[in-house]
């Protein structure tokens, strides 16, 4: 039955047609375009029916944030401004989302860390803000180079956390991300992460949906908590604030609120599977050797597998797409035949390997590496070398290792 309130098929002020998102993503014609990751973010936002975007300069997301400003000047975004710091920007995003807007922002590295206090507040307030994180180093001494350590800090905020491998993932997931985030039984913020520079500053062929089609607008009245716009009656949500009382009821109320956030993360699973075609992609799961990775480490792993094939070593691959919700069962299933599991990562602590070890039986199968950090690249050869060494095979010595 046709929904008389539906805007599908009508046009916005820029002449774009509000299009059913499933049709837009899966059936609408695609045009191959040669763009940088930053330009792809802009093109996704052009189609996202975004109400408010708030920007702040930090490498390597500055270009994307500025390009979205151009979209605002063209009339595609409701409002746009530069905030004064990432902490302020993430609070401004919260204010806009409290007011019922579809909100977008971008950040990176130290900016993510500076804004951190906001993220559990976003998820606690059930604000479906989308934040692009173009990961870079966070430690002193200063580095602007790619490094994914900041993702580890996001994993326990109650946000959805996805890790894009390519610019194509980015384009599709920005649009699909709103569909998952804004579901009434989810209604949580999304940190859509990518590896800075490798994705943001390199050009790639990306298949774009038509520029004259856009997402249906956000409906804030599908939120599980009231939208703060005085369009619905004010209700007293609590007799006394939790902070006021030191008693069991107060603790229990706060505890149930937290549990509900994480239940919502779990409920996002089915929607994420629907939109992303699964929380992981897996190849050659019958192989005894598996590489499990997220982000651009997946691309390097794929290349390593090709090199190993040339030497007669068969190796499988798991691409982890969502870190929250965490694809526990999928990873268990995909690695059940593996005797060795390698987890290449672009960070010093190996947070992904730790997550995997905590997930699968016989975690001694996990080789937490190879790992690079501080902006180093990860040539597929070091993944090959790591695997061959573990298997007791002869391997070329790599330059600089002194062996």
């Amino acid at each position, binding site marked *: 039955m046709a929904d008389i309130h539906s805007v599908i098929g009508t046009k916005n002020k820029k002449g774009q047609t509000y299009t059913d998102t499933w049709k837009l993503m899966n059936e609408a014609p695609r045009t191959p375009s040669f763009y940088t990751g930053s330009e792809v973010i802009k093109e996704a936002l052009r189609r996202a029916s975004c*109400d*408010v975007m*708030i920007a702040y300069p930090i490498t390597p997301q500055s270009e994307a944030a500025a390009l979205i400003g151009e979209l605002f000047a063209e009339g595609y975004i*409701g*409002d746009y*401004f530069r*905030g*004064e*710091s990432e*902490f*302020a*920007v993430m*609070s*401004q*995003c*919260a*204010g*806009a*989302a*409290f*007011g*019922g*807007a579809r*909100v977008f922002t971008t950040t990176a590295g130290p900016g993510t860390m500076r804004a951190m*206090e*906001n993220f559990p*507040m976003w998820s606690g*307030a059930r604000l479906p803000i989308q934040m692009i994180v173009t990961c870079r180093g966070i430690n002193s001494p200063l580095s602007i180079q790619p490094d994914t350590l900041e993702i580890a800090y996001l994993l326990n905020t109650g946000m959805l956390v996805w890790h894009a491998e390519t610019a194509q993932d980015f384009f599709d997931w920005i649009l699909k991300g709103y569909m998952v985030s804004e579901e009434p039984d989810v209604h949580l913020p999304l940190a859509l992460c990518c590896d800075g520079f490798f994705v943001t500053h390199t050009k790639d062929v990306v298949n774009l949906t038509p520029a004259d089609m856009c997402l249906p607008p956000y409906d804030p009245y599908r939120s599980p908590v*009231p939208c*703060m*716009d*005085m*369009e*619905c*009656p*004010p209700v*007293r*949500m*609590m*007799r*006394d*604030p939790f*902070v*006021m009382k030191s008693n069991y009821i107060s603790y229990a109320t706060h505890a149930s609120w937290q549990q509900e956030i994480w239940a919502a993360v779990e409920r996002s699973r089915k929607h994420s599977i629907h939109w992303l075609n699964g929380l992981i992609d897996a190849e050659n799961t019958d192989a005894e050797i598996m590489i499990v990775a997220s982000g651009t480490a997946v691309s390097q792993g794929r290349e390593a597998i090709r090199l190993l094939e040339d030497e007669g070593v068969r190796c499988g691959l798991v691409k982890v797409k969502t870190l929250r919700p965490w694809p526990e069962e999928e990873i268990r299933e995909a690695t059940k035949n593996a005797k060795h599991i390698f987890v290449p990562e672009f960070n010093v602590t190996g947070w992904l390997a730790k997550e995997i070890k905590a997930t699968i039986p016989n975690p001694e199968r996990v080789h937490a590496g190879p790992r690079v950090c501080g902006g180093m690249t990860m040539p597929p050869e070091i993944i090959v070398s790591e695997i061959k060494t573990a298997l007791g095979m002869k391997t070329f010595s790599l330059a600089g290792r002194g062996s």
Partner: protein
Amino acid sequence: MSKERIQISEDLYDIMPSDYQDLVKSATYGKEDRGWKDIGTSKELIEQHSLCAGCPESMAFRYILASLPNPEDTVMVGSTGCTSLVFPMVAVHNIHSLFGNQNAIASGLKRALSVRFPGRVKDVVVLAGDGATVDIGLDMTLQAWFRQEKFTTICFDNELYANTGGQESGLMQKGFVAKMAPVGKLFDKVRLPEIARESGCHYVVNCTVSKPSLVEKVIRNAVHIAREIGPTYLQLYTPCILEIGKNSMEGLQEMRDSEKPTERFAYKEYVSEPAKQLLAELAAKDKERKAAAKQLAGQVSA
């Protein structure tokens, strides 16, 4: 939102809390000349509060909520502190998120409401303590003013961190001995009203809340000017009687003592030129409305 939006289904009427029934029956949403005189004859937009007995902040809350010119389309933003204990009892939408980010929240909120409701009035009012406004949140307080964000910032100045137990704050007087100022505060009370003027606020008032009529006037002015022109700032003395060693009944006298001409809360006001013009226009309209009402009343009685 209009008052029509807060009707209760007849079938559910008897199970609704009595304070909500009262809101529907006799609150002053939509009343054009609402003000402090409605207190006592209508349902206030604040229910019980959990502040200390006699706290001047509770008086300030009541006067402010009675004076908002447009509560049916006003969203308030608070911050962490004693004020955040009151907001759950307030019958306008209000946001508490973090400590000190209230003007950043309000910036995003006001812009979202402007995008979503073009051509409609949606007022945003920030109400936070002095720690939130002047210390931890100063950056965001000032930057919102620099950007000319169109909302009102109210600071409840009690000259210390009350909710955490009486620590030194930037608005504390020099020399005052407090927690974290064990030998007395070493620097002057921050002159935020002057900074507000230099930062682009169009209406700045520094006063106490001893007189409800005065609170009504400055709240109405601040909200109207913020709606039409740009940022406004009110710094209201709401002494923490607990931390300055006063009794419950002594808050009012403390405010009266502090607003004498030579004291730090003597009434001070700054109004920008465009704001003066707006206030004159509003006063003229008000006069016209009253004259018309008088004429109408004359006709009826004649």
